[in-house]
C-alpha cells in the first residue's frame, strides 16, 4: 500500500505543470520569473526640466517575441521628486512597492491587472511616523503577507542610526526593529529561510546621501559617518546574533542559492572589496574579505552585485569607472576575475534573468551623486551573457526619452497573472525544506 501511494504521488509530481521559480536575488518567498521576462520595471528619478520632472515607474519591453521589445511601454509618474531608489514585490507578486529616500514616501503599484501598464494604487506617507522615526526606506523584501523594509536614516539627526520596519501587504504598519547599538547603520537585508538567518549591511544617513558628492567627499568628518558593519540575525526572532567589521560601507547582499551553499556575498563601496559571509561548522558565521574590485586606490565605488542562480558568476558594477566585472565565484573564498567591461560613463544597478542569459544595467546612483556634464549618461542597457562575453542587446537613452535617472529594475511577466504558470516559492527540492532541530 505504501509503495502504491508513493508511486502515485511521484506520477502526480511528474505531471505537475511547469513552474516559474526566481530571478536570483529575490526573496525566497516570492514566485519567480524563470523563463523569458516580458518587462523590466525601472525605478526612475525625476530631473527638473526633463519631461514632467517627476519620479516614475518606467516599464520597458524585454521579450524579443513581443513588438514592444526594447521600447518604453508605459510610464507612471508619482508626482514630485522623492529620490525613489529601491523597491520590491509583495509575496504574491501582485504589487510592486517603491521607496523614496528623501521624504520616505512609499508608492505601491498594481502590476497584476495589466503588467504592461502598472497603476499607482496607494501611497504611504506615514513611514517615518509609523516607524517611530525611521527615514529612507531602502530594501523592500517580501515575507509571507508582509514587506520587510530596511531604513537608511532617522528623523532625529538624519544620521545613519536606523531600523528594519515591517508592513502588512495591505499597507498597515506592523513593527520597527532598530539596528543594534554596535552596528546602528543599515542598508540591505536578505533572508536565508533554510538557515533561519538574516543578514544586514550598512551605508550612511540622509545628511550624507542627499548631499552633493564632491562636497561630501571633501568633508572628512562627514566621510567618517558611513557604516562599517554587517550583522547576522536570527531571522524568526528578528534578533541580532553576530556583528562583523566590514570597513567601507558594505552594500548589496546576495545569498548563494544552490543546496548546501551556506554563504552570502557583499561589496564594500568605499574600500572596493568583495566580502563573503560564510557559515561555519558550528552554525556561526564569519565575514571575510575575499577579493579587490578593480584598483581600490582609484576608488571605483562598487555599487551593485548580482549572483547567478548556480552560484558560479558574480557580476559587480562600479559607479566611477562605469565598469561591470564578472567574477567566477565557484570557489567562493577565492573569486577569480573573468571579465571587465565598460558599460558607460557611470554605472549602477545590474539585474539578471533567472537563467543567467540576460543582464540589464542602469546608470544612476543618487540624484546628487551622479556625474555631471557629458558623463551624466542615463541609460538602461540590455546584454546577452553566454558565460564568457556580454553582448549588447538593446539600449534606451533615458535622457533622450525625457524620463530621468534610471535606477533599480524588477522583472514582469504577463503569463504569471493569466494563470499560465504555477506559482511557487524558491525551494524546489527536499534539500530546500527547512531543517530544524525538533524538540521542546
Amino acid at each position, binding site marked *: 500500500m505504501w509503495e502504491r501511494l508513493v508511486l502515485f504521488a511521484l506520477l502526480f509530481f511528474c505531471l505537475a505543470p511547469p513552474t516559474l521559480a526566481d530571478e536570483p536575488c529575490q526573496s*525566497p518567498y516570492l514566485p519567480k520569473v524563470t523563463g523569458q521576462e516580458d518587462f523590466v520595471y525601472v525605478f526612475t528619478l525625476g530631473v527638473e526640466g526633463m519631461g514632467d520632472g517627476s519620479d516614475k515607474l518606467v516599464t520597458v519591453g524585454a521579450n524579443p517575441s513581443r513588438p514592444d521589445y526594447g521600447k518604453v511601454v508605459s510610464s507612471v509618474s508619482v508626482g514630485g521628486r522623492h529620490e525613489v531608489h529601491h523597491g520590491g514585490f509583495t509575496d504574491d507578486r501582485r504589487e510592486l512597492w517603491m521607496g523614496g529616500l528623501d521624504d520616505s514616501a512609499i508608492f505601491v503599484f498594481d502590476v497584476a491587472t495589466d503588467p504592461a501598464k502598472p497603476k499607482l494604487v496607494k501611497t504611504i506617507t506615514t513611514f517615518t511616523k509609523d516607524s517611530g522615526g525611521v527615514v529612507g526606506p531602502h530594501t523592500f523584501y517580501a515575507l509571507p503577507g508582509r514587506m520587510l523594509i530596511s531604513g537608511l536614516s532617522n528623523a532625529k539627526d538624519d544620521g545613519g542610526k536606523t531600523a528594519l520596519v515591517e508592513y502588512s501587504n495591505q499597507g498597515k504598519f506592523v513593527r520597527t526593529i532598530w539596528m543594534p547599538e554596535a552596528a546602528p547603520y543599515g542598508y540591505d537585508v536578505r533572508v536565508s529561510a533554510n538557515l533561519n538567518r538574516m543578514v544586514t549591511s550598512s551605508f550612511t544617513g540622509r545628511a550624507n546621501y542627499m548631499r552633493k558628492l564632491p562636497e561630501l567627499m571633501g568633508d572628512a568628518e562627514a566621510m567618517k559617518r558611513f557604516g562599517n558593519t554587517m550583522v547576522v540575525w536570527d531571522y524568526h526572532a528578528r534578533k541580532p546574533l553576530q556583528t562583523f567589521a566590514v570597513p567601507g560601507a558594505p552594500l548589496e547582499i546576495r545569498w548563494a542559492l544552490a543546496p548546501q551553499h551556506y554563504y552570502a556575498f557583499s561589496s564594500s563601496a568605499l574600500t572596493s572589496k568583495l566580502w563573503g559571509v560564510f557559515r561555519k561548522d558550528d552554525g556561526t558565521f564569519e565575514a571575510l574579505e575575499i577579493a579587490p574590485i578593480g584598483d581600490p586606490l582609484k576608488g571605483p565605488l562598487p555599487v551593485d552585485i548580482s549572483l547567478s542562480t548556480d552560484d558560479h558568476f558574480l557580476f559587480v558594477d562600479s559607479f566611477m569607472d562605469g565598469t561591470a566585472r564578472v567574477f567566477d565565484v565557484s570557489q567562493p573564498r577565492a573569486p577569480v576575475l573573468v571579465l571587465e567591461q565598460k558599460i558607460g560613463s557611470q554605472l549602477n544597478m545590474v539585474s539578471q534573468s533567472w537563467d543567467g542569459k540576460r543582464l540589464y544595467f542602469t546608470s544612476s546612483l543618487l540624484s546628487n551623486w551622479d556625474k555631471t556634464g557629458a558623463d551624466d549618461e542615463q541609460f538602461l542597457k540590455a546584454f546577452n551573457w553566454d558565460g564568457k562575453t556580454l553582448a549588447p542587446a538593446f539600449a534606451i537613452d533615458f535622457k533622450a526619452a525625457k524620463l530621468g535617472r534610471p535606477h533599480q529594475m524588477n522583472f514582469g511577466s504577463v503569463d504569471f497573472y493569466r494563470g499560465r504558470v504555477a506559482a511557487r516559492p524558491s525551494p524546489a527540492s527536499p534539500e530546500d525544506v527547512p531543517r*530544524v532541530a525538533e524538540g521542546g
Partner: protein
Amino acid sequence: MGRRMARRLLAPLAAALLGAFSVAHADSALFTPPAPGTYELPPIQHVADYELLDPHGARVRLLGLAPGQVALVSFVYQRCTDGSACPAALATWKRVDEALAARPALARHVRLVTVSFDPANDTPERMAELARHLRPRGDWRFLTAPNEAELRPVLADYGQDVLPLVGAGGERLGLLQHLTKAFLVDEHGDVRGIYGSGFLSAQILLNDAQTVLAAESAARPRTAASR
C-alpha cells in the same frame, strides 16, 4: 467508491506523506528555532470569522475561538500536484496534530483548521474523506465553502491568492495557481504569523502558538485592571 475517485482522493495524501517523509529524514539540523516566549509576534492584520461548511455540510465558524485559544489555519486544495505546496501543508498540519496529541495541556489551546480554496471539487464529502485519511487526533477542522462566491471574501481577507491555471488556448487545466499560505490567528482575529508553505516547520508553528498564547495570557490581567 469507484477506482478513479479513490485515486483522486489518495493522490494528495500520498504527496503529503512524501512531504512528511522528506522532512522527517533530514540528515542534520541547520538551526534551532528560537524558544517560545523569547520573541514577539505582533498583529499583522485582522481577519473576520467566516461561516464555512464542515464535513457534514453544516455551517461552522472558520475560527470559532474561545478566549485563550489560537488557530493554525492553512488553505489548500486536494488536487494540488506541487509537493512543496498543499501536500506539504497537510503533512505539516499532521505533524503538529501528532505533537499536540502528546501535549494535551497545550492542545486545549490550539485549533488546527484546513480550508479548501477549491469548493467546486473539495465538497464536504471530499473533505470528510481527507479527514478520514489524515486521522486527526485533536481539534482539527476540515472546511470548505458552498461556492466560490462565498469563498472569495475569505481569501481576500487572508490575502490568499488563487487563480485557475489555463493552457495555451486558454482552456482551464483543472489546477490552481497559488501560493499556499498558513496563518496563526489569535482569539481576537488578529493574524500573528504568516507562513510560506515551502518553509513550513511544525516546531516553529508550535513555538509561535505558545508565544502568542503566553503573550495573550500576560496581557489579559492588565486589560482587566485597566477597565
